């Protein structure tokens, strides 16, 4: 078997084991919370009798271990079950929201990744001179702002001072692609601001590290322009560290943007998850947790594969 293929298969198998472990940890976490789903649904109106009835109805009286394996067995058969709180089919509820999550993350990634790498290359090219300082300063500023502050600032600037966009990012099925793009413009801007600095700084650092190598001097002595030296000779050797940081940020764009979703009223997975954690709705939390974990694991496998692909020593053994 080709070494790269072998590695991917190994990682995938490991990823499945990890997912199983994650599901157990999520289950334990929910169990450890005070109260249960019945209490969360009934709230102040709970009486001993109504609680007992609801628990019976939701199957909460079974031992924890039984409930976990019942869930696991169904999940392995592709049945994520229904939400305990409102009886809605989880797969359906998640499907549309996950689409929204991916759309937002995708838009932010398409802008931020090329921008961050370009800015990183430019900053490395002008290391220590004014373009480097301006880029570093600006990206540091944007990453230093908490997300919600950045969000309100962007809303104020682009809906009040310059009324270009809508402050609320409402999307619904049947919207045209362009209307959707227009709707997510503001949250995308905020997310780009948040993830830009990390990727940009890693690109710059990785390039500057490679620039110490003897083969960079060779390239300079060939009479290449500084940008040719960086692009042709430094960048191919800096891919591995850059990719790992880019992937980390992509994962964040998928799983970590609940604050931005809330500020812009964007109906996506993060909000959905937080709502159901407060209600102790185990099947929903499990399902969303599994998706987030799978995204993380999948992206990290991708990062490994790209890093190996970028290294000719591994791609072309002697």
């Amino acid at each position, binding site marked *: 078997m080709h070494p790269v293929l072998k590695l991917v298969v190994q990682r995938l198998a490991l990823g499945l084991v990890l997912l199983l472990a994650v599901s157990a940890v999520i289950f334990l976490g929910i169990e450890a919370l005070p109260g249960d789903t019945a209490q969360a649904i009934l709230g102040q109106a709970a009486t001993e009798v109504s609680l007992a009835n609801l628990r019976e109805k939701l199957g909460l009286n079974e031992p924890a271990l039984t409930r976990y394996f019942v869930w696991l067995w169904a999940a392995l058969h592709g049945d994520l079950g229904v939400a305990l709180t409102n009886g809605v089919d989880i797969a359906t509820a998640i499907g549309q929201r996950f689409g929204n999550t991916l759309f937002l993350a995708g838009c932010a990634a398409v802008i931020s990744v090329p921008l961050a790498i370009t800015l990183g290359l430019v900053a490395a090219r002008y290391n220590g001179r004014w373009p480097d300082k301006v880029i570093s300063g600006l990206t540091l500023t944007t990453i230093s702002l908490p997300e919600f502050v950045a969000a309100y600032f962007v809303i104020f600037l682009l809906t009040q001072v310059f009324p270009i966009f809508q402050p609320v990012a409402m999307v619904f099925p049947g919207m045209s692609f362009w209307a959707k793009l227009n709707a997510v413009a503001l949250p995308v801007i905020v997310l780009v601001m948040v993830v830009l600095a990390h990727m940009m700084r890693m690109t710059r650092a990785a390039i500057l590290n490679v620039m110490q190598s003897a083969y960079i001097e060779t390239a*300079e*002595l060939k*009479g*290449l322009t500084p940008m*040719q030296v960086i692009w042709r000779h430094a960048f*191919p050797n800096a891919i591995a560290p850059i990719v790992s940081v880019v992937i980390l940020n992509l994962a964040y764009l998928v799983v970590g943007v609940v604050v931005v979703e809330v500020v812009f009223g964007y109906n996506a997975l993060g909000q959905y998850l937080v709502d159901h954690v407060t209600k102790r709705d185990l099947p929903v939390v499990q399902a969303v947790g599994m998706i987030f974990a799978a995204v993380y694991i999948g992206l990290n496998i991708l990062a490994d594969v790209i890093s190996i692909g970028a290294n000719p020593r591994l791609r072309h053994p*002697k």
Partner: protein
Amino acid sequence: MAEILLEFKDLRIEATSYPPGEPPRHVVLVDGVSVAVEKGKVLGLIGESGAGKSTIGLSAMAFGRGGVRLTGGQILLNGREIRTADAAGLRALRGREVTYVSQSAAASFNPARRIMEQVIETSISHGLMNKSDAEARAVDLFRQLGLPKPESFGTRYPHQVSGGQLQRAMTAMALCPKPDLVIFDEPTTALDVTTQIEVLAAIKLAIVQTGVAALYITHDLAVVAQVADHILVLRGGKKVEYGTTDQIINDPREDYTRALVSVRSIEHAEKSEARALLSVASVTARYRGTDFDVLKNVTVDLAPGQTLAIVGESGSGKSTLARVITGLLPAAQGRITFAGRVLSPDLLGRSKEDLRELQMIYQMADTAMNPRQTVGTIIGRPLEFYFGLKGEAKRQRIQELLDQIEMGKGYIDRYPAELSGGQKQRVCIARALAAKPKLIICDEVTSALDPLVADGILKLLLNLQAEAQVAYLFITHDIATVRAIADRIAVMFKGQVVRYGQKSDVLAPPYDDYTDLLLSSVPEMKLGWLEGVIAGRKMESAGN
């Protein structure tokens, strides 16, 4: 008078160094050097490290490595002043008029790109040729330089070919854009002696066939004598002597040049004795996780107070033999007897006395010392560990040892960073002597040093041997060093001892094939030596 291609006039090059814990220091690297290179001729730049040869070489491309600044004088290339040229002007000349071959091609090739892309890059980015012409020329050059499978050689990545092949590929890279001048910066120094001669012959042939001019930088006068038309001897950034190769080699005018020419003049009468201090019997060893023996059935003896030289190329197993004797790599089979007792194969099974009597000195003195300890602490440690010396007694003994290595007072509180390369190696010798050993293993101890400094170290080692009756196991790839110091010699090749005996026997004909190749590959300081050897080998292979 031939046309002048490159001329340095009163060149001055400076840099600022930042020694740790001290204010920045201004240093003059090259001071008032004037020399010219004619079209199609080869100028050899020779000197020890710090002489400014590489700095001058790179200045022919108006390039200063690190913070090096070209501060004065003129650099005229094809009649143009290039020292003060702007960035665009420099890019136009680098790679087009002047190209560069570095000491370590392995580090100078981009590991992420195929060799062909890198070899033709200059020709294409300067618009000198189209891609197919450049590739055709590259293949021609690969063939000319004797690279295997020239048609497909360029499709490989740098890590897929050997060091000697990469060095030739870098020469092809330098010649591909048809430059006027190539700078060869110690192109064969990092290679094994048998590889060096092949690369040297390939470079010489390429220079002759393309008619390119060259600056050939090296610390090895015997090497430069084979390729250069003229030689400039440098010391401390200043010109010592300039002349034709013939005059510099056969009739040097300056004392310093004479010292360079006559280096390795140590006469060492061979001793012979039957008694063995160290006896390595049928030792076989392999590294964990590998499936081949790095040492195969090695048997050698060393008498007390004598020197056994282990000679061979990189990968021949000489350093592994040292690791096996010290116990760092336990032998799989065979027996090592030392001072009448059988040594445990594993380091952990050895007594403190075993450890004390068997000391080691390494090639890189730099990395063999803790940079945060003073010379006194470094030498004092074995005194404490083996003899329990403390306070004034210890300090007195350290000073004695410093006197023995001819370093005298004032060094005891210095840090390694404040010492020169030769002084660092002397401190390592003193540390080994401090344990009063019966045997010191010297692993390429002079390889990283300049010839004159190395000479001093060898003389010191011989004197110490006479005084303290210590035996040396001397590992080296350098035949000249072996001649200077050995009593007995073992020639190693691919993990086996192929020739073993007293120096006078091993270094006298009839030779086995490998020893013959090894001995005949060592550059000799006379004109036409390279041609003679190459012609001799061609005759042989034609005769076969």
